[in-house]
């Protein structure tokens, strides 16, 4: 689905054959849901939400951060963590390098802090363009450290999740990042910290089954696919055809698994309200 959106195939009808020859590759984007074609720049201004059908496409982490935080207010934590190859897994290093070149990111999560309409907040934004934002040691470590920093600074922590699940090439070290990040959340909770989780497409496996589900409030973007096991695995296991909306944000909301589904265009205002209510504090006597 995400691949379609960024594919450079020009089989759609919108731009004429001539026009296509003038357009550099990647200038146009096609909505993976309704098929309409837009200029990339126009789509970018729309935060990659299709103006026609409202489909939420993948939003690069830098654009999400730029859009959510007040101008000039944000900085990045832990920019120097480098992923190793602890299991000596064949071609893992090359795969990482390839995605680093492709995305300009060092790893699948960007962490830091900034202000959202004046409210100082720590953040973690996962980016599924990098190894499907699977969770390896660096992803787990950066998220744990961001939560610890939020605890020490006594500020809220907001995470935008996206992940295919575990980073298989790091074996059990990947699995243990679930425990590490969840332990960090527990410490943050004990200290009275506010954590908001916003699940974006897709949020699966070890990420879904750890910090993504542990916010004081858990939200999702419209249409985001969220689950522990993937649809294909579930279908093979129970030998049953699943409904089309299985594991969508709306499906989870209907099953009581989410606080709400929030449109990307409303996100900043919505989060600001929550931050404001918590800033006012409880325990008013």
């Amino acid at each position: 689905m995400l691949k379609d959106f960024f594919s450079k195939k020009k089989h759609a009808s919108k731009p004429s054959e001539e026009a296509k020859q003038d357009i550099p590759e990647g200038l146009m984007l096609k909505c993976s849901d309704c098929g309409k074609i837009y200029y990339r720049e126009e789509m970018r201004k729309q935060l990659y939400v299709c103006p026609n059908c409202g489909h939420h496409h993948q939003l690069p982490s830098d654009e999400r951060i730029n859009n959510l935080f007040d101008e000039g207010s944000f900085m990045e934590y832990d920019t120097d963590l480098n992923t190793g190859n602890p299991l000596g897994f064949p071609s893992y290093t090359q795969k990482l390098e390839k995605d680093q070149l492709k995305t300009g990111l060092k790893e699948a999560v960007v962490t830091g802090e900034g202000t959202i309409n004046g409210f100082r907040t720590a953040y973690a934004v996962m980016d599924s363009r990098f190894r499907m934002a699977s969770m390896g040691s660096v992803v787990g470590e950066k998220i744990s450290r961001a939560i610890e920093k939020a605890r020490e600074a006594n500020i809220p922590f907001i995470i935008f999740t996206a992940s295919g699940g575990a980073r298989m090439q790091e074996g059990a070290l990947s699995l243990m990042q679930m425990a590490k990040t969840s332990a960090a959340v527990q410490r943050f909770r004990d200290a009275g910290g506010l954590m908001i989780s916003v699940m974006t497409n897709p949020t699966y496996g070890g990420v879904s089954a750890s910090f993504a589900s542990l916010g004081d409030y858990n939200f999702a973007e419209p249409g985001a696919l969220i689950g522990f096991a993937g649809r294909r695995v579930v279908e093979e296991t129970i030998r049953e055809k699943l409904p089309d909306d299985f594991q969508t944000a709306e499906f989870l909301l209907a099953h009581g698994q989410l606080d709400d589904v929030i449109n990307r265009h409303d996100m900043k205002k919505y989060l600001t309200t929550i931050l404001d209510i918590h800033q006012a504090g409880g325990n008013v006597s």
Partner: protein
Amino acid sequence: MKQVLEFEKPVIALREKIAELKTFTKESDLDLTEEIVKLETRLEKLENDIYTNLKPWDRVQMARHAERPTTLDYVEKLFTDFLEFHGDRYYGDDAAIVAGIAKYKGRPVTIVGHQRGKTTKENIRRNFGMPHPEGFRKAARHMQQAAKFGRPIICFIDTKGAFPGRAAEERGQSEAIARNLMEMSGFEVPIICIVIGEGGSGGALALGVGDRLLMLENSTFSVISPEGAASILWKDGGKAKEAAEKLKITAPDLKELGVIDDIIPEIRGGAHRDLTSQAELVDQAIAEHLSQLEKLDKQVLLEQRWEKYSNIGSFAE
């Protein structure tokens, strides 16, 4: 019929031959004692060669052995006054997880473990030890009680993983696992987790966060099954043997990676050979680690637990 593992076949064959000769000696005038002694020496050497050089895939077979002792087998040997309690109080009672209270050498403990069956019928009832959310929530409920009443928690891990079904997803499989990971990191009582068979992915880890993570020598602990990894990596589930080696899922490998704290030795030929002897080895490990943990002040216990988890991972800075 006893399940025979591929790598054990030479041992089994030799054992059968020895038995045959013994019968023959008894029933005929021919004395083959000398020959038998020779073969027994060979058997001793062969067993030693095979069982001290188990490959990851051999251990996978061992961990999955149909007669391998389960949680309830160990509970019966190691604890007294065990009372099993049921239900998560929200939805149902998941037979893939057993939980309850008991005494361990006189002191009260809470026990939680995955429970698979040894027969097809029992496996179906227990969903092959693959829990639904209500199983994890039952476990959480008992561990919360342990924390309330100050009882140490002993967890037995033995699952291929959390059940990947529709109902499990609808009822919040992810949330149930995540909550266990988080809460287990904060319970102010000693938690000892022991992988006794297969430790598959998040469903295993959901009973695996504590002060000690121990593994039986021939158990496995993995982020994904070797078959699953092979089918993702090479689009060929048949390359599971290769994946088992690459994934580093055995106790010695995981000790080296810093994922587990200790290895509990197994009797030669595997835990299923003699439950009583194996249980003694598990008993020694629990006694040793529990006595270390019981000495610690609550705050120190939690601080050490956090240190342990915050240090797991591999990266350069």
